[in-house]
């Protein structure tokens, strides 16, 4: 069950490159196995975070103080595009990230965030750029505040920005709702749908072949 999200004031790290895909967030070989949860935090952004010899890349923002403690990422366009791997979200979560702010995210990554209690916030690119500039102006010392209930972000400069959010998804994050349990409460409706659909589209439901 996801952890509820309501308010957060934290260090934020701008990672502004476009099209950071989920392969870059977590490499595939870290995800091969059934017992990977809890092992992924140190591999988040592996190819950016470590040099070929395995040492930390001092140029990568999450390797620098105070960004090491960042719980918020401010991201470039199309962050989280590509593969559906939920391990991308798990690795960010295990690295301590609780919210991502950008002008747009990969559709599947965006959905996966909500499943894990991570808040993805979409705002205009101009707002993202301003936030990144405000953070850099304080060399990361200035915190970013997010209030999900009020749907606002406050930049280190004090500038306040509002954001849109699907009310259903907001409610789910605020309460940490478990979608599987919620849907199973509608199991009668699922069975009723299937009963009637079996008549309308029998070819969907009879899948056992004799051949």
């Amino acid at each position: 069950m996801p952890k509820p999200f309501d308010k957060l004031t934290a260090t934020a790290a701008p990672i502004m490159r476009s099209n950071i895909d989920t392969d870059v967030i977590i490499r595939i070989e870290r995800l091969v196995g059934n017992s990977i949860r809890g092992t992924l935090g140190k591999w988040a952004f592996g190819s950016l975070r470590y040099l070929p010899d395995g040492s930390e890349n001092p140029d990568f923002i999450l390797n620098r103080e105070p960004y090491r403690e960042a719980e918020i990422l401010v991201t470039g366009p199309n962050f989280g595009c590509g593969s559906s791997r939920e391990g991308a979200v798990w690795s960010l979560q295990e690295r301590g990230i609780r919210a991502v702010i950008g002008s747009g995210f990969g559709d599947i990554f965006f959905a996966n965030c909500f499943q894990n209690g991570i808040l993805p916030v979409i705002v205009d690119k101009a707002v993202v750029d301003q936030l990144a500039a405000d953070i850099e102006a304080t060399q990361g010392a200035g915190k970013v505040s997010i209030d999900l209930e009020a749907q606002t972000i406050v930049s280190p400069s004090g500038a306040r920005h509002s954001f849109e959010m699907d009310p259903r998804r907001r409610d789910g994050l605020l309460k940490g709702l478990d979608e599987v349990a919620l849907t199973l409460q509608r199991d009668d409706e699922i069975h009723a749908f299937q009963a009637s659909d079996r008549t309308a589209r029998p070819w969907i439901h009879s899948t056992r072949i004799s051949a």
Partner: protein
Amino acid sequence: MPGRSLLEKIWDQHVIARLSEDTDLLHIDRHLLHDLGGSRGLLDLKSRGLKVHNPELTFATPDHALSTAPGRAGTSKIGQELLAALRVETAASGITLFDVDQPGQGIVHVIGPELGLSLPGATIVCGDSHTCTHGGLGALAFGIGSSELTHVLATQALIQRRPKTLRARFEGKLPLGVTAKDMILALIGQIGAAGGTGYAVEYAGSAIRALPIEGRLTICNLSIELGAKMGMVAPDEKTFEFLRGRPYAPQGEMWDRAVKAWRELPSDPDAVFDREVVIDVEKIIPQVTWGISPEHVVGVDGVIPDPKAIDDPARRAAVETALEYMGLQGGAPIAGTPVDWVFIGSCTNSRLSDLRAAAEVARGRKVAAGVRAWVVPGSENVKREAVAEGLDKIFIDAGFEWREPGCSMCLAANGEVVAPGQRSVSTSNRNFVGRQGPRARTHLASPASAAASAIAGAIADVRMMGR
């Protein structure tokens, strides 16, 4: 009231419950599992004390983590464990598994259409972003994450927001040497890797109608590289002919009923789309990527972008980053760039027609010295059909390696990688940083272009190697 689109028709038919103005609980008709996430999902379900809601609508096959070496030699210990777990957990839940060496095994997005599991008007999900491939048959198909996968196992339903609709119309007659892969790469180059984000894309127009089904599957496969998790083509007579007689397609009287229903699916003439794009296919030439996003694409007769000629600082920096990673010089022609590897395979381009196109170029020629070239058929059935036609022999005679079906070097989940710093021409779908192995450099292209590059030892224009 305006007409309805293909998306709207399929969507409305699957609504179990309306949860909000734009969010519905949708019935899922087909759920495909693979070795990387399938057993994990089934174990997750078990740990919650839940059962698979509809095992008869769920199908599994190993593809990601097993070796594609002859005899499957070299499957890693963890790959073997995942396969063993998939066998145990699917058997315990009563889920059909298409196992190694059996007809039916293969890349999930190749076997679904091939077996007739994927049908027009069906909702199809899989824990893999390239599930959009199945949209080529007129299905509503999309990739999901692990949590949604568990949700579907437990409920045979999924909570989804209704996407916006984008219609991409490909018009005109496709020039010689230009393929479905080139069409979709050209569209990504035109509207960008986020151009389709938030949309379900319907591919339409005369050039889509003229494409065989396997080409439509390739087009839909790259929807996610456009940012769209769903892509689809309206079913037509070609779709029905493709599906007729396949093992899981309806038969007899049920077939007639199904076809009658499928004929109602295409978008109404007065359907309204949120966005519309038109592509003149007569202007498309074979495409090849130069960078680290599928939107970094040019015609094979083009030049690599020169950062010095780009005014916008953000875009200039992005091009510089990509060129540094790729080890390329801005302003140089892309053709002639020497390559180390050629990979023909993946859910994008590993079907029989893809292998035929590559073999046509390879026949009677030799892979250039210093190039390793692999052909990895998409499924056991594709492999057997290709062997029956002698395609394996053409490839082997030309110096290609002929392998067992699987995802292989498309994402390198099974340890099959391009070495650091080496350059690959690949028929797969992603040229991301490290996608084919740490620091590997990937150029996406069509099967014919990839085969031509293997022969030339460098990125090549297949039109210059005419038969």
